[in-house]
């Protein structure tokens, strides 16, 4: 699903440049649930941004579902993001004046799905994350866990090839974190490819594979025995 070869990225900070990614190589197969771990400054967020087409790499190859991702214009990047990727953020990033349902329907709007169909589909995904009764509530009326579930529903609504989650549990307490992870596991069980960036060991161990990043290189890449999150809920 994702192929990365010798990915480099550096940021210019005044006169000196900061080499963040120093040649990353890895592949993600269809249906994997991968945790990218690393302390802050290890380059994990930069990697995720490049994978998410929010940022471009300096050199190296990135292929997503057979499509080479290179030198994208903003418009093309937006189209690819919409078609291939679903995002889940640490701070949820729901649009605060839109109801849960409208938030979930938003990527479908950019896919030019007709309104009625959009609403139905959004409702279906809200139901999947167990928030159908909250469909018409504003984000401010939802708890943190609920917000993240809405965000996951929104990311899934566009039926992306890969779900990218940037510290999805970073702003949640551990019980809610496990709830969210249980949901992510459930989605993965259905065959979706998911990438989770985290610095929490327990969250990482709920994935099926852990990629350890340190100072811009992969220091460890191992398949693990998945810890099911339901048992903690």
């Amino acid at each position, binding site marked *: 699903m994702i192929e990365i070869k010798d990915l480099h990225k550096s940021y210019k900070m005044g006169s000196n440049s900061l080499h963040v990614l120093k040649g990353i190589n890895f592949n993600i197969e269809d249906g994997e649930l991968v945790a990218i771990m690393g302390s802050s400054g290890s380059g994990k967020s930069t990697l995720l*941004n490049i994978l*998410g087409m*929010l*940022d471009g790499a300096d050199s190296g190859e990135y292929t997503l579902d057979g499509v080479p991702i290179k030198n994208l214009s*903003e*418009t093309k990047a*937006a*189209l690819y*993001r*919409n*078609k291939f990727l679903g*995002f889940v*953020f*640490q*701070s949820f*990033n*729901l*649009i*605060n*004046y*839109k109801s849960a349902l*409208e938030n979930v329907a*938003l*990527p479908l*709007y*950019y*896919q*030019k799905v007709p*309104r009625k169909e959009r609403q139905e589909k959004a409702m279906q995904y809200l139901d999947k994350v167990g928030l159908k009764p909250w469909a018409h509530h504003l984000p401010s009326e939802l708890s943190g866990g609920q917000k993240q579930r809405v965000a996951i529903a*929104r990311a899934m609504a*566009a039926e992306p090839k890969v779900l990218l989650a940037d510290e999805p549990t970073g702003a949640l307490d551990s019980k809610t974190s496990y709830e969210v992870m249980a949901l992510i596991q459930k989605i993965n069980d259905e065959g979706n490819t998911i990438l989770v960036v985290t610095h929490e060991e327990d969250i990482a161990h709920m994935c099926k594979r852990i990629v350890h990043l340190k100072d811009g290189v992969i220091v460890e890449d191992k398949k693990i025995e998945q810890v099911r999150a339901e048992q903690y809920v």
Partner: protein
Amino acid sequence: MWLFDRDLWFEIFHTLGKNMFRTFLTMLGVIFAMIILVLLLGSANGMSNGFNKLFAGTASNSLFVWGQQTSMPYKGFERGRRIRYKIEDAEILKKQIPEIEVLAPRIELGSHRGVVTVYRNGQTSGSSVYGDFPEIDNITKKKLVEGRFLNQTDIDDSKKVCVIGEETYKLLFDKGEEAIGQEIRINGIYFSVVGIYKPNNNINIDGENAVFIPFTTFQKAFNSGDRMGWMAIAVEEGTQVAVVEKQIKDILKLKYDIHPDDERAIGSFDMSEIFNNITAFTTVLKGFSFFVGIFTLLAGVIAISNILLITVKERTKEIGVRRALGATPKIVKRQIVVEAIVLTAFAGLVGFAIAVGILSIMNSMWGSGDDFPFVNPMISVPQFIVSFILMVGLSVLIGLLPANRAVKVRPIEALREE
């Protein structure tokens, strides 16, 4: 065509509607600007209409010509000679200058602006007495309170009839007394009253205390022969009054042996000059109002742009999310520009409605007053359309500013955690 994309409009109204307070604040500037623009333009129009009403009944393309004294000796004549026209001059002028539409000769009893004693049943009035042709009514319209003005039959039969001013009526008759059919006496000759006119606020050349009798009757009754006092002349629409004025003077100078450079021998008054001055005044006033209004509007639209800029900053994250979810820069830009247009257009309409309301109130308070030139203050449809198009055009240009700012922010920066 995106213009008919229901989803886009839904999205925009939704966004604006969910942020009512912000939307309202944003619109305030344009609402006020539009109110000011419409009020200014409307008032200028009202003033223009008021002047038009004031001068209704006076032909704007007219002039008056009378004889004065020569100021230069010529062909053996000494200076200071009084110029007296003859009735035949009217025919000569009409024949030689085809641009003359109406030429009404007039003769006055006594000297110019002189006063003659008019008697009736022991009451008297000092009035001007004019011998006129009915055509004069085409140049300075008389507002008749009762009866009729002089007509062609009066001229043909030299009838001893007269039309009197309201002022004259008050002097000669008791209040409420029937005047039509009554006789008044001028220089020992009786005339029967056929009409009474009222001063009508327009340029009043004849005064309010005057008696009009048929020209032919005047000739016989007062033995004026072929003399003619002055002429009221209306020229064809589209012809410069000044040009005709010069032609008339040239002909008369030749006929009466007046020095070609003598400016004082022939008196004249060009009515169109007054109208031109007033038209120029109201045009300048309208132009000025439009100018001020448009700049106020510009300020209002800039205020919208400003607030949109601020909200774009505030919405950086939202825009970042939208773009992460697949909104192309074009879509983001379009949404912000259309938001600017919708805000401006809606605010403009609200301001317009308020201003029209104020104008109607003003109209009902002062609109009918005869003493102040202010009638039907309202902006015209073309004025409205022009200002509206201008406003929306400006809002597109100025909406692009925040829109460009919005797409300049890269989604990654917008989404960066604090």
